[in-house]
């Protein structure tokens, strides 16, 4: 088994608001191996984008982080900004949702690539720079004839492919993509997903794909981590998680998706909690159809289960820590529509 490209251990990220500290990421751990794609899914406000920004060292001022992000033997948490900046690009590539806002509108595509390569690989000759750029652009289906054009001369899908090319030209080992297809149409989205799949096949790149779209995760990711209220509540191989979801939140979320095979509407009552004051015990317990006596009283413990997932839910034990009577059903509280998301 190859060593993971990145190993995240007990990562916490919190920031201050006028209503008190928000624990946006609360004790999260995972690994990504070379050539592997991990899908990080969750609804808005679950902390998935904060986690992505934390990994890139791009947290806003006033945010604090502890735990470990081990990349290539180095813990990135607490690393000086200068050293982090050197890692971003050649080691950790980034792809964002809005390609237009990330490309410099006044720079030809050629210049953007040259600047990127000159900054990080100063030894390259002009010819090598051109060759490297054209090669990766061609791989994204951007014709070499358009190398000297400006970002506004390209369509949305092409800009996103240029963004991906710009991230890949430095050959990073880890790519973090935050909702890379959300602003795109279905057909273009499918094209981009195809490109991301080729990426890990051809370059052995490790990819963290952050998205709210469970359909994308099912198609593009080897593994999936489901986030709720700052925690990863379930992680495992995508096939396993989708076929046999172990956490009630994963199960209910999958049931609430409207897909082509939907015949009835399902949804999760209530709303995700306010992260300044999350519910006690399991954060999902007020909305959980399977809630037990133990759930609001004790924090759940991460458990590996038979089907291969790791789950943060008392339904899966550990039995030893559940007090007697803890498994008895707790009456689920009624939600007024007024409290919904």
């Amino acid at each position: 088994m190859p060593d993971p490209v990145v190993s995240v251990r007990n990562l916490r990220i919190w920031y201050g608001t006028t209503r008190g500290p928000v624990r946006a990421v609360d004790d999260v751990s995972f690994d990504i191996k070379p050539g592997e794609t991990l899908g990080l899914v969750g609804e808005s406000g679950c902390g998935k984008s904060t986690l992505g920004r934390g990994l890139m060292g791009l947290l806003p001022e006033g945010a604090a982080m502890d735990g470990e992000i081990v990349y290539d033997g180095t813990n990135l948490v607490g690393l000086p900004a200068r050293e982090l900046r050197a890692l971003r690009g050649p080691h950790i590539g980034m792809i964002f949702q809005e390609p237009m806002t990330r490309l410099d509108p006044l720079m030809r595509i050629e210049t953007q690539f040259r600047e990127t390569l000159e900054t990080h690989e100063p030894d390259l000759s002009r010819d090598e720079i051109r060759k490297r750029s054209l090669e990766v652009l061609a791989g994204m289906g951007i014709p070499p004839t358009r190398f000297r054009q400006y970002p506004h001369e390209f369509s949305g899908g092409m800009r996103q492919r240029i963004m991906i090319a710009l991230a890949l030209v430095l050959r990073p080992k880890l790519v973090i993509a935050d909702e890379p297809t959300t602003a795109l149409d279905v057909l273009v989205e499918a094209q981009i997903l195809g490109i991301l799949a080729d990426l890990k096949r051809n370059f052995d790149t490790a990819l963290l794909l952050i998205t709210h779209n469970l359909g994308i995760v099912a198609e593009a990711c080897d593994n999936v981590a489901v986030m709720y209220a700052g925690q990863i509540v379930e992680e495992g191989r995508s096939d396993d998680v989708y076929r046999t979801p172990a956490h009630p939140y994963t199960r209910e979320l999958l049931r609430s998706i409207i897909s082509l095979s939907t015949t009835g509407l399902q949804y999760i009552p209530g709303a995700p909690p306010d992260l300044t004051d999350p519910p006690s015990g399991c954060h999902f317990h007020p909305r959980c159809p399977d809630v037990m006596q133990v759930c609001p009283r004790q924090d759940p413990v991460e458990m590996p289960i038979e089907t291969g997932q790791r789950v943060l839910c008392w339904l899966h034990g550990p039995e030893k820590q559940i007090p007697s009577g803890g498994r008895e059903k707790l009456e689920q509280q009624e939600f007024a529509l007024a409290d919904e998301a």
Partner: protein
Amino acid sequence: MQTKPESRPPLLEVTDLKTHFPLRGSFGQRLLGRETGSVRAVDGVSLSLRRGEVLGLVGESGSGKTTLGRTILRLAEPTSGSIRFEGQEVVGLSEPAFRPFRRRIQIVFQDPHASLNPAMDLWTAIGHPLIVHGIIKDREATRDAVGAALTRVGLTPVDQFLHKYPSDLSGGQKQRAVLARAIILGPDLLVADEPVSMLDMSVRAKILELMIELKRELDLTYLYITHDLATAKFFCDRIAIMYLGRIVETGPTTEIFENPRHPYTASLLRAIPDPDPDRTTPRDLPRGEVPDAAAPPLGCSFHPRCPRAFEICGWESRDLRDLIEAHWTRIPEEQYERERKLVGDLEVLEEPSLVAQVPAGRGASGSDVGAILRRMRDEDPDEPLWTGVRDTRVDDGHAEVTFGEWLEPLLLPDGDAEVACHLYDEQARSKAR
């Protein structure tokens, strides 16, 4: 006049509607007030909606679906065509003459946050239409009507919600408030433009359920505008698929999903990411993106991307340019450098023409270009573009590719649906030999 319900005219009937937006080019041209073309956002759309029906208008961004919705509400001025509401023509009506129709046609937009004034509490915001239309004089007197609307959309206890501001509400609650404002005038038709697209997965179902309830209780008719085929399948009685300003396929929902006819519909259906782990993304997706509506392709707008296009679909010079450029992304660097020198500036192919003259580069001849084209054809003989080529000849300074005549696809009945595609038009096919 007594008429049976069946013989009543449709609630909404749109015929050959066009909404074009003028384009102004350079500063100089703008200074002279000269128009340099137009974006044909809606380009000859006909549809009708019976009372109580839900019609799904499905398309990608740039298809013109939103402009069509806005034109029906007269938020955009139609260029030509007719919009009849219960048989009465509304195109050409002055603003005051149209105002009574505004009470009966309401719209819900995609972004509930942008739809609500952050400085208005719900009482003011939801009661606003009543005051604007002069039904109730002041805000105080709207309380009962606003309370009833809030109750209908589930924002209870009313007393608590009347004084809330948009910033106090979640995304789903905001969309409920927007729906309350839309129904307060007792409309007949609700144009819903992506009403659930901005909401989280677990909330979408609730808002769709509310819309179904409102439709039943208030006898509403919906025009549901979306890019999301999955919600359209669940929600709509009939579907119209739009591409670049036109309807390319329309029919009952089950028919569209079980038996998609247009290659565009078929590829949309295959491209939807599905949470079923047994499905994978298909690899044979249409290339490229929705073209520019200011310079649409000749013939069928979808032909440059269509895997099943053939000779009469509208092949022309721009398609040849795209093909040459795509070829250059697939070949090794050295070969590209070599070929690039043999071919001149492809910009000349941008003017749509059935005769495409591919210029030779400096020091190269037309036969060099001809050789490249021949090699491209040998390497990919199944490329649909070649079916449209009538003749290729080489001259001193260029290679000339002549394409055959093309036909405009018409929206024609095929079984229970209507489709605008030459594959389903016997007459057109026979012209193609």
